[in-house]
């Protein structure tokens, strides 16, 4: 009996009843996310909102950085925040205390925000009134790198307590970022970390990324980050 189709024929050159076909698909696995991200991008474009996706490991100081940024800039620009965490609204409450609009997304089992979640969250904002929308992604240096949210800029917050070699160990997230904020510089004197080498590793992985050294706690270096934001907001409004 033929092993392939189970028919009674013994020879090799008979027609099998079962026919295999090969099909080329070349379909991106995240095509659906990418399409939704494009829609979000179109919305930000139409409403002149600068969307900034903040990514980092857990505990790098993203929320502290946002609190200080909002406090210092809210008199000159209208800011909204989407907070992504697996659980709790602790970060949203901290941001709320600064007086701006904030929406918490709890991703539960998911380790990243995706374009679909952002789309739903956007309906809670009056986008026409916003200058900047910060999207604080789930603290994770791997997964958020694969998901385009439709943002204008991806900013990595890397704290010096994480060690200087993170860009080489987790290159994916740095590849698509336009700016890296090296945070917790106030601790530089207490740590054996080579911050210059850390910045050179960032540029090795992404030669076009800008880098700024800051301390969200003391305010050191934050003025340059604010200038970066002002410049991007102005450019967005020019269009």
């Amino acid at each position, binding site marked *: 009996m033929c092993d392939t189709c189970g028919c009674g024929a013994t020879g090799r050159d008979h027609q099998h009843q*079962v*026919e*295999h*076909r*090969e*099909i*080329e*698909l*070349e*379909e*991106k*696995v*995240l*095509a*659906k996310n990418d399409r939704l991200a494009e829609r979000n991008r179109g919305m930000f474009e139409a409403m002149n909102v600068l969307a900034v996706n903040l990514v980092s490991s857990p505990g790098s100081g993203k929320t502290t950085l946002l609190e200080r940024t909002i406090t210092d800039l809210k008199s000159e620009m209208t800011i909204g925040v989407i907070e992504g965490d697996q659980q709790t609204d602790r970060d949203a409450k901290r941001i709320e205390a600064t007086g701006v609009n904030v929406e918490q997304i709890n991703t539960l089992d*998911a*380790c*990243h925000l995706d374009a679909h979640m952002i789309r739903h969250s956007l309906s809670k904002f009056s986008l026409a009134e916003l200058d900047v929308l910060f999207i604080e992604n789930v603290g994770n240096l*791997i*997964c958020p*790198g*694969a998901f385009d949210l439709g943002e204008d800029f991806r900013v990595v917050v890397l704290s010096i307590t994480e060690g200087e070699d993170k860009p*080489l160990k987790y*290159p*994916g*997230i740095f*590849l698509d970022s336009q700016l890296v904020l090296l945070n917790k510089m106030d601790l530089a004197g207490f740590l054996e970390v080579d911050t210059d080498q850390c910045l050179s590793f960032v*540029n*090795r*992985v992404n*030669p076009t990324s800008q880098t700024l050294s800051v301390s969200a706690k003391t305010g050191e270096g934050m003025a340059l980050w604010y200038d970066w934001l002002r410049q991007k907001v102005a450019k967005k409004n020019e269009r």
Partner: protein
Amino acid sequence: MHELGIMQNIVNTVQNYAKENDINKVSTVILEIGRISGVVPQALEFCFDVCSNGTVLEGAKLEIDNVAAVGRCKKCNAEFDLIKNNFCCPTCGRADWEMLSGRELIIKGLEVI
């Protein structure tokens, strides 16, 4: 660990394709996964059985082509493995390159019955 969601995406995409093209049984799914795609191939394999159960993919073989992260040096044009060389050109030592491959996350094709 977003491989479960990624695999669910893959299964949904193939299922939709199968439905549109009157395919009743998929025997092989071929994926291309880049080394810097943020996805772990072994974890994808682990999720495949769970996600494909009860679909046209049930019992199918999962083939994963791992794609190296390759850059081309902008100075000397050498092509090199980015990860093995710590993102520096091994020929001239510069870290200024364009990425040729390594971020793929693609359903390359299917074998169907």
